[in-house]
């Protein structure tokens, strides 16, 4: 499998890339040991998790992937299924390509919804599921982001959704809602550049956005009732979009579950509190 793994080019800046059926995926492979795969959400990339992964790399193999969720720099194949169920298969294809049988999956935001769907559809690939603030149940996505999928489904609708992000102040204001601390404006700009400059990436982002639907997360939650391995939740309780009540509801559905709350953080918990998130992940893994 490793034959497909290469390192290359400006677009990947030293990250490795791996070819899967859906296209080429870039990732950082940090440390050695039990594998942890980090799943970010829409319109961010692996840099959301780097601060957490770097702290864990002394004891674990941390796979920090730039998933094709709209901030990826290499567009996927035009026919690739990148709807939420399609994204689940992208993760499975990535695990297959790296020869990883079973991993700890850590999710955030819409990536957390995909992680729940992965756990329900392929429980044999998930050693344990660790969720930080993310879409669940009826909130995939939460208001006002729930207004995006109906527009994304209309031809040309993605242009309408992307248009406000051309205004620097507006895009920074949007991302600032997702953090308790400051977020580097350059990072926000960089996360939105691929969609603004590459229509193929915008087309990729459209597939995920248009496909977001509570039916996926409601079904995943039901599917997880039979999940026999650990579910752990590291939750920022001050988040206005992803409420602790949803986390508690999911925890109640899985036999082996536990929630820890994180102070002074919002949706992007791994950016706000990387040390605390890393500490909790290590603790969860030691747990079982």
């Amino acid at each position, binding site marked *: 499998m490793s034959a497909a793994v290469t390192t290359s080019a400006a677009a990947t800046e030293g990250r490795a890339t791996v070819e899967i059926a859906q296209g080429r995926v870039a990732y950082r492979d940090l440390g050695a040991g039990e594998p942890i795969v980090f799943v970010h959400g829409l319109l961010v990339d692996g840099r959301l998790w780097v601060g957490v992964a770097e702290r864990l790399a002394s004891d674990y193999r941390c796979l920090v992937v730039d998933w094709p969720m709209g901030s990826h720099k290499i567009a996927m194949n035009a026919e690739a299924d990148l709807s939420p169920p399609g994204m689940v298969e992208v993760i499975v294809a990535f695990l297959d390509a790296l020869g990883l049988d079973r991993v700890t999956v850590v999710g955030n935001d819409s990536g957390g919804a995909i992680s729940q769907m992965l756990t329900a559809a392929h429980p044999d690939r998930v050693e344990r599921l660790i969720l930080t603030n993310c879409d669940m149940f009826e909130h995939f996505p939460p208001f*006002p982001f729930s207004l995006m999928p109906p527009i994304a489904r*209309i*031809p040309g609708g993605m242009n309408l959704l992307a248009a406000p992000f051309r*205004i620097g102040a*507006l895009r920074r*204001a949007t991302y600032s809602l997702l953090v308790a601390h400051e977020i580097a404006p350059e990072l926000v700009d960089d996360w939105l550049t691929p969609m603004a400059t590459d229509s193929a990436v915008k087309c990729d982002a459209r597939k995920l956005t248009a496909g977001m639907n509570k039916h996926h997360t409601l079904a995943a939650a039901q599917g997880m009732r039979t999940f026999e391995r650990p579910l752990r939740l590291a939750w920022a309780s001050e988040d206005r979009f992803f409420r602790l009540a949803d986390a508690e509801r999911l925890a109640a559905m899985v036999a082996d579950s536990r929630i820890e709350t994180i102070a002074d953080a919002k949706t992007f918990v791994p950016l706000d509190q990387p040390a605390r998130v890393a500490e909790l992940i290590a603790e969860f893994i030691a747990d079982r």
Partner: protein
Amino acid sequence: MNATAAPASTIETLIANYVAAWEARDPDQIASYHAEDGIFHLHSDAEVVVGRAAIRDTFAGLFTIFPNLAFIEQELVSAEYGWTVRWAMSATLALPYPAGSKVAEAGSRFEIDAIDLITVADGELTAKHTYLDWQSALSQLGLS
């Protein structure tokens, strides 16, 4: 362009038919005036839309989001290559429109200035470049 330039009378008829199709808000009829391999480019927020079918879908999408889209012509100059028109566009949102945490509710209205630069060959639109003041639309919708 001389090889395919249309006589003035043909251009005038095409303009009248094309404007009527927009007034009817009929994407099939509008698309029928675009060349099979023609392009539509909404500057600068959108990618180039290539081909009659894709152009039809794009305009159909536009009418879904803005069902009462209307245009007031302010100045039109036709020439051998096609025509240029300056117009005011008014529209009302059919769906709530999010921009970050702000939302423009369905029913919100805006009116903006725009320019179309249209090229024609063999009696069909080969390219339509539309420039509109979307920044003003966002501001009128309370989103910026």
